[in-house]
């Protein structure tokens, strides 16, 4: 018996969004009396951090601190339409809608401030501190709370904005497949290192080394979360998961709980090093592309290629079970000329 080591490579691209249905998302934003900004969405935060990204996009565009922004999601009575959270579209579609809404609100905010300061709105700037200032004259300033109070109680204006991201629906040409279904492409290259036990057929993914190009990392901590969580899922899809282990021959042996449906635990989680590259997308909010789904994809073929490198077995069926490895090793032995 032996523990055989191998290295494998894979490089992929992944589409951001899918607009075969148009796939719009909307955002509304309004200021409260005391200078808070409420972003209303019907988008769902799956735990990937969509609300946080929406707050960052709003705060950056308004030129206000993030603490001033409240994000309200997923209530169809109070939020505007969103197609949904899927297709690696949240940051891109919702982010764009929020930026558009916040731009409109910022414009009103600056007009109100200009009237209070008796200056031209075009001469005003924000710096993320909560103040609106006169360019070149830092002592002439007004706090967002005073702007909001003036708007509500004195000027009779709503500081608000509307945003929608809609890319025209693409109808594929049936003869050729000509279509424009996505908004951008993100990129990844993964190098996997594995160990194959030639007695048990068990594959251990030792390490993953990744380079990801994602347009712009709006929040590097959440990018890390996506990259590492996605890689874990990719490893799981590569060497663990199947609801029908003998597909397509039968539906027998289907798991009913997590003692039968196996996924990696802490001991099976590979060491990871990742580097992020940024090539801003022209149509992305601050250049961001979607990365959610992509992060699970490159590890799978990288592991398959590493298994071949380690033991000479070409796995062509997902998942790469111990049984399939052992059958592959048997075939290799059978094919060897006898001594």
């Amino acid at each position, binding site marked *: 018996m032996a523990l055989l080591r191998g290295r494998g*490579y*894979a490089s*992929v*691209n992944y589409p951001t969004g*899918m607009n*075969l249905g148009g796939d719009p998302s909307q955002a509304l934003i309004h200021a409260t009396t005391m200078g808070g900004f409420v972003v209303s969405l*019907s988008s*769902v935060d799956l*735990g990937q951090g969509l609300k*946080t990204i929406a707050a*960052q996009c709003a*705060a*950056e565009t308004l*030129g206000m601190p993030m603490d001033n922004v409240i994000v309200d999601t*997923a209530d*169809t009575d109070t939020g505007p339409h969103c*197609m*949904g*959270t*899927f*297709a690696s579209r949240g940051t891109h579609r919702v982010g764009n809608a929020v930026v558009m809404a916040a731009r409109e609100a910022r414009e009103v905010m600056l007009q109100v401030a200009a009237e209070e300061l008796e200056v031209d709105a075009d001469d005003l700037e924000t710096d993320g501190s909560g103040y609106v200032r006169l360019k070149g004259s830092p002592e002439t300033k007004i706090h967002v709370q005073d702007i909001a109070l003036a708007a509500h109680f004195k000027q009779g204006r709503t500081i608000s904005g509307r945003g929608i991201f809609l890319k025209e629906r693409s109808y*594929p040409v*049936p003869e050729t*497949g*000509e*279509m424009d279904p996505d908004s951008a*492409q993100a*990129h990844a*290259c993964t*190098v996997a290192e594995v160990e194959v036990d030639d007695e048990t057929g068990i594959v251990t993914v030792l390490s993953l*080394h990744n*380079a990801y*190009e994602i347009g*712009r*990392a*709006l929040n590097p*901590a*959440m990018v*890390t979360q996506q990259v590492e969580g996605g890689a874990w899922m990719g490893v799981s*899809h590569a060497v663990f998961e*199947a*609801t029908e282990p003998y597909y*397509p*021959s*039968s*539906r027998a042996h289907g798991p*009913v709980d997590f003692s039968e449906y196996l996924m990696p635990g802490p001991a099976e989680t590979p060491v990871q090093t990742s580097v*992020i*590259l940024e*090539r*801003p997308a022209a149509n992305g909010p601050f250049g961001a*592309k979607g990365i959610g789904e992509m992060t699970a*994809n*490159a590890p*799978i*073929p990288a592991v*398959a*290629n590493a298994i071949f490198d380690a033991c000479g077995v070409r796995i062509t069926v*997902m*998942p790469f079970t111990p049984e399939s490895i052992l059958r592959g090793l048997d075939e290799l032995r059978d094919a060897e000329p006898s001594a």
Partner: protein
Amino acid sequence: MAKINEIDTEFFADERTSDFTVIGTPAQRSDALGHVTGRTEFFEDRAFPDLAHVKIHRSVHHHARIDDIDCSEALAVPGVLRVITHHDVPANWYLVLRLIGVEPLDEPVLAEDRVLYVGEPIVAVVADTEAAAIEGASRVKVSYTELPAVLDVEEALSPDAPVIKKDGTNYFVYEGHHARRIRFGDVEEGFAQADHVFEWRYSSAPIEHAPTETTGCIVVPQSGNRLLIHSNTQAAFFTLDNTALILDRPFTDLQVKGGTVGGGFGGKVDVMVEPLACIAATLTNRPVKFVYSREEEMQVSSPRAAERIYIKDGVMADGRIVARKVMLYVDSGAYSRHTPYGTTKAAAHLPGPYTIPNVHADCHCVYTNRTPSSAMRGFGVTIADFAIESQMDRIARALDIDPLELRLRNAYRDGDMKAHRKVASGTALIEVIQRAAALVGHDLPPEYLALSSSTPREA
């Protein structure tokens, strides 16, 4: 200090700006503290007096005619309030993408005269307690006549396969075609000029999203004839629109509240629980909870579609791929859900991030007597990437070319025409390969280190 991955600002430095105050900062995720301290409210955390529960009686056959449904013993179970059959569903046939005009409506909310997969819902039982609903569902008696089933995608397309769909084909019809096609260049001419031709097959089994929180909702009748739906949907308006269409009620009768999801990964994009919970709430005038058990989540919630892919490549001696022909079979299971859409996404992804002048693909969305598949992370792309990147490794080994050099030679660049006739822009495959090679000390020759995605390909 949390680990944050390095951002390498050397690449594309002239395309980046960095005068931001909030963008690019590692702001803490707004829901993180709530999640780790147990304060986040999920739909099931809401308590309602008189909460009733829905459980389903499901098909035990892959394919069968329903001869009779007897609910008398179910109704006799103490605590059972109602049974719901297809007669109680105002508009029983639906497709999740109906709102944007995708047809045909092919899936019943509750089976009528036929079942097409093991686990297909036939009768919903509403009861005072979850235990009574489970007991009631187990006592529904369905008489069947078994029909021949087809479980393999290629068998399903053969002329003598049993026809399982009511519109007469075992495949989704793409504007008159049996497959979503990609036709780019002249693939046969490409093979004729190639020094080598490689053809291999790849496949996958269905997999489960495995969310921590199973699919579910609580529907609460409101004053004014409205229904409030607390749901863990990934798409609040998919839920609202489809539920209203199935109930045949005005959209304004419904309010969907959600936003907190214990794992989705595409598994909570279909509208599977809300319509029946709304019908149950309307019939009983009580709040109703319908949540999948873990077994239901694994056995009957839509899995990732299994796929079978044949790839034939024509390759020059120097590694340039000059022709690629792909036959893709996507197992939709018994109904469409999102799989026809995912198959189109798969077609648009071919042939991956590589510039190949001649590409021919037929991407079939095939119906079988299996659990309907649907959206999942990597929708239409994951298995294609597995196949394409395995193919690249095998070609590199066959021609004794460094695997990264083979990829760099074929990598798409700005201005290249993709097979679905969209001009590539914002590409960066070359750079991620260069950077990954550096990460693991894989030396690339200088001419490969000098390549760039923004430099047009040499003629």
